[in-house]
């Protein structure tokens, strides 16, 4: 049977397609003007920590202030991409959690509104941006998450320095995330830069030498904890609090060590989204997040980051910052260098064929 060439169909379809395309191409308003004025008495949080922590934080905020709070868990890369896409009409009011490097990058792209909370005065200058683009809510220290059973099988002792990590005995037995997606992995990369006196080339050289030992570069910075826990790798390079949390899930073989040369750390940030619809509530959220009460919630949901507010009680499961040698971590410089450095990492390290 002959198909039906319908002249009018085709004309109509073309017309429709053109109309749809025109509508799509049509003028998108880029100003959020006027719409941000009204505050609906709720706050929408882009949350960069674990689901449990995010849920606990928003629940307790609502309890404390009566302001409704919703959250979406997003990694720091995803958050910036979505803030960028929603520049004209942001769906989030607050960004809470995740290394401050990402906040710096977002701030540079004009995605955040500076806000200096009255409560920020209590927080050390090391842990906040002077202009108020972001304020630190917790500190996490990079460490080695070791599976002692696997290491015993491999007859390798737990690494205690960055050099130990290069041991041939650890071939394909180091878990590490990709610095493009993971704030954790970027913290590690920048720590190498700091350890090599700011020489990015030397830092990448170290990563190249580490490359044969890396199983795979995972998306999420928390994933290596799982890899180590299940014995997929002997060592995961992650924030020590994530290792402790995994330990608590029932993985008793895990131990934490720190590199002797000095290690990097993250400052988890909180910030206002530019053009936020509920900016008044958002400010209340930021104020609240900096209080000791809010910062003591973490340990109740197995998040053992160190609070930035000196008046907040520190869980005994948190790392003692005085016992670990830290590198001089310049968050602002790390944030600015992020794009170029991850690009170089990708070209020079991650795609190099394994030996």
């Amino acid at each position, binding site marked *: *049977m002959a198909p*039906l*060439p*319908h002249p*009018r*169909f*085709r004309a*109509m*379809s073309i017309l*429709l*397609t053109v109309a*749809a*395309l025109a*509508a*799509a*191409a*049509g*003028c*998108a308003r880029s100003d959020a003007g006027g719409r941000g004025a009204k505050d609906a008495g709720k706050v*929408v949080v882009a949350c960069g920590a*674990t*689901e449990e922590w995010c*849920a606990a934080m928003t629940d307790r905020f609502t309890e404390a202030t009566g302001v409704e709070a*919703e959250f979406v868990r997003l*990694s720091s*890369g*995803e958050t910036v*991409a*979505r803030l*960028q*896409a*929603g520049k*004209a*009409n942001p*769906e*989030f009011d607050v960004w809470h959690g995740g290394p401050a490097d990402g906040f710096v990058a977002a701030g540079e792209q004009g995605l955040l509104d500076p806000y200096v909370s009255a409560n920020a005065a209590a927080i050390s200058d090391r842990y906040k941006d002077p202009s108020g683009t972001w304020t630190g809510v917790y500190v996490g220290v990079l460490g080695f998450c070791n599976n002692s059973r*696997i290491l015993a099988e491999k007859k390798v002792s737990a690494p205690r320095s960055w050099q130990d990590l290069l041991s041939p005995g650890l071939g*394909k037995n180091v878990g590490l995330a*990709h610095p*493009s*997606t993971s704030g954790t992995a970027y913290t590690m990369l920048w720590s190498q830069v700091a350890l090599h006196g700011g020489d990015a080339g030397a830092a990448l050289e170290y990563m190249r030498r580490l490359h044969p030992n*890396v*199983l*795979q570069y*995972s*998306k*999420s910075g928390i994933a290596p904890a799982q890899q180590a*826990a*299940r*014995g*997929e790798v002997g060592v995961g390079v992650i924030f020590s609090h994530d290792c402790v949390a*995994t330990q608590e*899930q*029932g993985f008793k073989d895990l131990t934490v060590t720190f590199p002797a040369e000095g290690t990097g750390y993250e400052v988890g940030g909180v910030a206002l989204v530019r053009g936020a619809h509920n900016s008044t509530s958002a400010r209340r959220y930021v104020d609240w997040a900096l209080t000791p009460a809010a910062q003591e919630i973490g340990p109740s949901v197995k998040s053992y980051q160190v609070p930035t507010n000196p008046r907040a009680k520190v869980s005994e499961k948190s790392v003692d910052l005085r016992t670990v040698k830290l590198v001089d971590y310049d968050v602002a410089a790390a944030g600015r260098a992020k794009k170029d450095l*991850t690009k170089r990492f990708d*070209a020079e390290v*991650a*795609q*190099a064929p*394994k030996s």
Partner: protein
Amino acid sequence: MTMLVPPPPAPVETAPSNRPRRRSRDVGVTVALVASVLLVAVGSVVPLTAMLSTALSGSALPRYAQFVTSSTDLAILRNTLVLGLLVGACGTAIGFLFAFVQTRLAVPGKRILHVVALLPIVSPPFAVATAAIVLYGRQGAVTHGLLGVEYDIYGLDGLVLVLSLSLFPVAYLGMLGMMRGLDPAMEEAAMNMGASRWQIFRTVQLPLLAPGLAAPFLLLFVEGIADLANPLALGGDYTVLASRAYLAVTGEYDTTSAAVYSLILLVPSVALFLAQRYWLGRKIRTTITGKPSGTVHLITGWARWPILALAVFVSLIVVSLYGTVLLGSLTRVFGVDNTLTLQHFREVVLGAGREALRDTTLLAAVATPVAGLFGLLIAWLVTRRLRRAAGWLDFAGTLGVAVPGTVLGIGYLLAYRPDRYVGDLLVLPGLVGGTAIAGGSLAIVLAYITRSVPAGLRTGGAALTQLDPGLEEASMNLGAGSVRTFRRVVVPLIRPALLTGLSYSFARSMTSISTVILLVTPNTKIITSQILSAANTGRYGVAFAYCTVLTAVVLAGFGLIRLLIGGAVVLHRTAAPTGRTPR
């Protein structure tokens, strides 16, 4: 949104006249066509255009030169193609094996095999990958625990294993309908002339099924290279274009690079699609003619046992993976602390997961009938109604699966995020994001539909190529309009394909992740993104519990769809000499 609404029933009585003139007055077809065009335009063409305008902007052009000169970029391209070919071949082979056992072997336990073959369609691939690592990985319960080897599952072999086992049901369901529709008269004739089973298989069944094999191969190929969750979970250092593009977006905020990678990813998909279509066009096998036909002779000799054993072996692997998911959801930490607990389920059903469960089910339930109907409708328009425009509509309809989900998601963000104005007049409010109408759920439904339509389109198209147009001509010569013919003759005849299309749409919507992960809003939570979040933070028990609940919902959906459509009717073999339909 008009395109979300099925076309209104068109006037069914059109004046019977001689054929050339009648066509131009067929209002029903016009409505169907307009609705279909609108759907593919809104669902994939517009977002893709938005994405392409980024990919082809001036700043993106140097990236192409970089790509062709960079050995690492070229290795990624090669990796992608190899993965697609292997997944397409293995998945189609497994699907064929199961369909063959189902339709041609006289063995016990076929119902069980059928259910096992359907299992993978209903679960997010991420669960399979995780379970595969737990069972067959370096420290796997089977590989390390039982066999004592340290099998490195990370990389190409693990990806092929997991993807083939996750995707083969598509091939299976398609070929099941196809093989049931295969006219046994040919086989009988060959048998009467003394051909052996193997000869029949090689010279009669295989050529007849060839177009049916090409369709699932194409589908698995493009799904294999577009898959995101598995390369992230166990790709090792085996990088593919989809994960590279995803990394560019989520890690480097570099939509330009992502668009470039996606464009390069599109080329093999499109090339394969066009090649397949050309090949299909040359060898159309009509086996449902409505003419007298014979009965199927099941294989009863010794040859059935090795074939069955192979199918059982594959089934055991599938069952072990899902068993791990189920057990993992009921134990504190599977393999480490095997204390039974219901705490994971409590969180999913009563706690944080409740909203996601409700929203996802609702949105998928809205998307499924629309996608199933449009898949079939477009297939019908393409194979029967259109001439030159057919290729374009078919192509546009397939875009939903040819385009990697992540890229489509970015296209949605770019196209539907902002409010659109002409002058001061709001013509199209934003559809994406928490501030959009209906909490951004409209965009998610649209994404579900767009990603599901190709399944119905493929299976519908394959079924239609087997359907003799004479049946429709007869109906139309008797005075029925096009739409009536479609409804009363075509749809009942290809009901198995419709069932496949609908079931697959629902499962695909419920388990889809790569597109909607970018569209999830605070007001509309989606199960799959919750799973990813749970798995990423190491809460495998919760992830497995989500998967189990999700599987239960999808299976319930299957049952409902089967109830409504009326099961996979075996109508071809009962075709009466007059060619009337059996129901």
